[in-house]
């Protein structure tokens, strides 16, 4: 290995440090800057003439011209191996639990994985097998999930297994296999490897278009604007519109094997909520504790800005790693606007010419490239794995006409627009049903999958519900302009049918133990019931009768939503509902 390049500090502006290196440096190479006793980590982000510009991931207080710097020769990497699940990391993959004291002292780092922990290893390959990067050599049980130990992703070409250890107990540092290349070069393999976070992990056979529904138990998502395994989506919304509640509901309920939450520049108390609640909650599908399938990357708003930029990449690389084990990973980033702001701060200090709202010119490309790392992939052994990515966006002033929202809209396939008016009237989740969309509804492979695996009419229901909502909105506008008695009763009926859909299907109580998670069969049944009512003809003598009648229908439906599926209470409220419907049937007969 070549000697590491050294250098000295020549300039400091906040966390941008100018360094004169004494040898070769690479773009994005990591380095350590000495500020007194503290060793600060930094990344080269620009090289001009004999100066390397480094963004330092920590406070630069006390740094002085002439401070020594050591370049590492490596880019920012994450450590990949068993023990990642249920960890709480910062943006640079330091294990936060390993830090002493209440405050995060600068320049500290901690081991991302536990070197002493032992794992029960079972080999999946045998001596003499030919393998390539990413192939599975064995597996260990990580909180009930099969954690595959893979051929290091950085290895090129075909290798032969010279030896692999028998089933047994090993630590991540123990050698579990030896591989030999065609030219006879030997390389030992342990359970841990590293990967540079900004480089997409593309060690797979092929990438496919998403086609499988990712069940979230949230009706407005699954029924109206479905998200798919390996899909992308984003949730923009002004503050107070329920972004965080919606993201946490996704983290708790989505049918994924692994959930990675990147708290990127958001409130510390929100991650504390996850730390406090997730260990107490059970995964509704496996019965295991929720924290066992969750990884938290906590780079909260008061933690260093440069590390915030790194945190989303760290999270994505961990997601890609678990995807390559044939698992379904859901990655949530809250909020990608804070990440974009971190990019803006650095670009500003570099004195780059600014783009719109002082964001860097390549913001749009950076966001698109990041979203493109999500997807469903086929592995060399025929298995599939997926990374589903949903980011939140915090648009300035709640106005969607701003660079981050606009750039994300081009990159993501699903759009869940949170709306202040819906939030103000407590219609949660405050996703605006007509403005939001899922482009996956148009994917023929998803249409086929939904018809065969979910329900024959799933897609038709989504379309019809959206139509009825639009009709209801138009009727509502008419009523507002012309007054209650200035429009026909049909307008009132259209309006109240849309309200029925809104109250019964779209609104959902994230704090109610039953209503918070609505399984697909139940969603299907509710859609059928609601649509059946929407197809009916009603007769009213005047508009005054419509509102109370529909309010009663809505009330019965809501009680059903709050009752266990198929329970006696559920049927009791269903009886009420049929009773109310029967009144109209009699009315019509008269």
């Amino acid at each position, binding site marked *: 290995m070549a000697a590491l390049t050294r250098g000295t500090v020549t*300039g400091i502006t906040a966390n941008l440090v100018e360094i004169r290196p004494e040898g070769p440096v690479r773009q994005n190479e990591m380095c350590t800057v000495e500020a007194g006793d503290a060793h600060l980590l930094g990344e080269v982000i620009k090289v001009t003439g004999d100066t390397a510009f480094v963004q330092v991931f920590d406070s630069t207080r*006390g740094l002085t011209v002439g401070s020594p710097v050591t370049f590492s020769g490596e880019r920012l990497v994450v450590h990949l191996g068993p023990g990642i699940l249920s960890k709480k990391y910062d943006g640079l993959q330091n294990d936060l639990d390993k830090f002493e*004291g209440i*405050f995060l002292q600068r320049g500290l780092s901690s081991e991302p994985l536990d070197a002493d922990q032992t794992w029960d290893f079972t080999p999946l390959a045998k001596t003499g097998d030919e393998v390539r990067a990413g192939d599975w050599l064995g597996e260990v049980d990580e909180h009930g999930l099969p954690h595959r130990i893979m051929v290091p992703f950085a290895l090129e070409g075909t290798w032969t297994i010279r030896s692999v250890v028998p089933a047994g107990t090993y630590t991540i540092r123990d050698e579990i296999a030896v591989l030999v290349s065609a030219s006879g070069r030997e390389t030992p393999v342990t359970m841990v490897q590293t990967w540079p976070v900004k480089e997409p992990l593309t060690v797979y056979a092929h990438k496919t278009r998403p086609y499988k529904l990712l069940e979230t138990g949230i009706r407005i998502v699954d029924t109206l604007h479905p998200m798919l395994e390996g899909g992308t989506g984003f949730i923009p919304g002004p503050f107070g519109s329920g972004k965080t509640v919606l993201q946490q509901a996704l983290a708790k309920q989505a049918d994924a094997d692994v959930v990675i939450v990147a708290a990127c520049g958001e409130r510390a108390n929100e991650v504390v*909520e996850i730390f406090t609640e997730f260990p107490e909650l059970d995964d509704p599908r496996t019965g295991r504790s929720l924290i066992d399938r969750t990884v938290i990357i906590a780079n909260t708003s008061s*933690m260093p800005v440069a590390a915030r930029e790194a945190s989303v990449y760290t999270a994505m690389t961990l997601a890609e790693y678990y995807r390559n084990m044939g698992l379904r990973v859901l990655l949530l980033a809250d909020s990608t606007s804070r990440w974009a702001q971190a990019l803006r701060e650095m670009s500003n200090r570099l004195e780059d010419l600014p783009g719109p709202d002082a964001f860097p010119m390549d913001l749009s490309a950076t966001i698109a490239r990041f979203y493109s790392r999500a997807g469903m992939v086929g592995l060399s052994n025929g298995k599939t794995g997926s990374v589903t990515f949903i980011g939140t966006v915090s648009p300035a002033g709640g106005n969607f006409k701003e660079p981050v929202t606009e750039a994300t809209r081009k990159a993501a396939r699903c759009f869940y627009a949170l709306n202040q008016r819906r939030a103000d009237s*407590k219609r949660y989740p405050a996703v605006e049903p007509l403005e939001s969309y899922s482009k996956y509804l148009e994917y023929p492979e998803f249409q086929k999958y939904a018809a065969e695996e979910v329900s024959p009419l799933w897609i038709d229901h989504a379309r019809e519900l959206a139509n009825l909502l639009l009709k209801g909105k138009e009727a509502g506008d008419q009523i507002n302009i012309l007054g209650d008695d200035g429009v026909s009763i049909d307008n009132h009926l259209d309006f109240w049918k849309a309200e029925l859909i809104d109250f019964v299907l779209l609104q959902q109580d994230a704090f109610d133990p039953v209503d918070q998670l609505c399984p697909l069969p139940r969603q299907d049944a509710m859609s059928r019931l609601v649509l059946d009512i929407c197809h009916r003809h009603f007769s009213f003598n005047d508009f005054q009768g419509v509102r109370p009648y529909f309010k009663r229908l809505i009330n019965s439906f809501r009680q059903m939503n709050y009752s266990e599926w198929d329970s006696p209470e559920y049927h009791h409220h269903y009886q009420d509902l049929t009773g109310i419907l029967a009144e109209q049937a009699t009315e019509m007969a008269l």
Partner: protein
Amino acid sequence: MEIRPFAKRFTQLEDITRATCTLRASGVHNEELALVDGQLAQVVRIKKDIVTLQIFAGTEGLSNQAEVVFLGRYPNLRVGPHLLGRFLNAYGQPLDGAPLPEGEGTELGGPSANPVRRAQPSEPILTGLPGIDLNNTLVGGQKIPFFADPDQPYNEVMAMVALRAKADRIILGGMGLSYDDYVYFRQTFREAGVLDRIIAFINTTQDQPVERLLIPDLALTTAEHFAVEQGEKVLVLLTDMTLYADALSIVANRMDQIPSKDSMPGSLYSDLARIYEKSLQLPEGGGSITILAVTTLNQGDITHAIPDNTGYITEGQLFLRKDSDTGKIIIDPFRSLSRLKQLVIGKKTREDHPQVMNTAIRLYADAQEARTKKENGFETTDYDQRAMAFATAYTREILAIDVTLDMDTILETVWNLFAAHFSPEEVAIKQEWMTKYWPS
């Protein structure tokens, strides 16, 4: 300001702007303090041997041959019980005459708390204001601003809340405070007999705007001392954060930074978060820091960069508004929000609290709709009229900031209002509580 022996001295300035000066010097540390002609300054940029200093008091009258002395230390404050009852300026020097003990202090602007060492906030802070306690219950360890127009009595409301909040310590950080408000705070605290619990750091409109930038760090480092070292419940009052942000934009402008939205620096979100995120609840009976701030608005516009970024950082906001119906200043029930209230209401307060709160707001919203209907010339129903009568009474007895009630009386008052204006079916609260609390 104490100068150490062998301190580095320089006497040739290369550049002077309105807030900064530049000189050639070596061996200087980033963020180190210096005295420029006796004025406090801080290193903000170093390029080879060119050092840029930010002079807090401004550069008016500064000579290009002024003496610059680097102090070899960082902004700090000696924190301890000796500060109690004291009013200090932005440099931590007494405003009230008597000198403070000298000595090395705690460095300001320390690192943030490790999220895994925090506890989930869980103790309600009752203020006696029904508009806050019922609808927007505050929680220890929370950070929440008042959003108010400059003509509203936000400082008075904040002082009132601070006095009733039963905190062990109250730290006031005044930024661009009018001299009158400074005197008001001093008198109010003195008259309430709580000076032994108060420490105030004051920058008034008479002082230089850039000096304000020091105030939050002084207040919060002091708060951390009492919360972390002494395990006390500390309430920090920061008024007015809009003027703090304005000072940030002045400095950014002088440093030739490219402004983003509303001429604010691109780092506004991080700068504000660094302050607000100092709020904290420590585990197992440890101390807490609760931040109550003021963000003044321009005619209620919350889309301006300052309130907008604040809203994304803080855990809700308390919105003051003048109610045209009753003429009272109220805590707006729609636009105010305490994000942490879910952690305490119905758990640490009476069981019916959440439903009473939601139902009253729903009925109040019905009244708003009825009012719109009426204003547009449509006919109102009997229900509409009762809803409007309810809203008027609810505004007078609950939302107005001149009401003081304890928690149980608040709930009782609202139940009485329900019964006076509505039938039980219209109120539609869980049957169990209707039976228990509906006034007979």
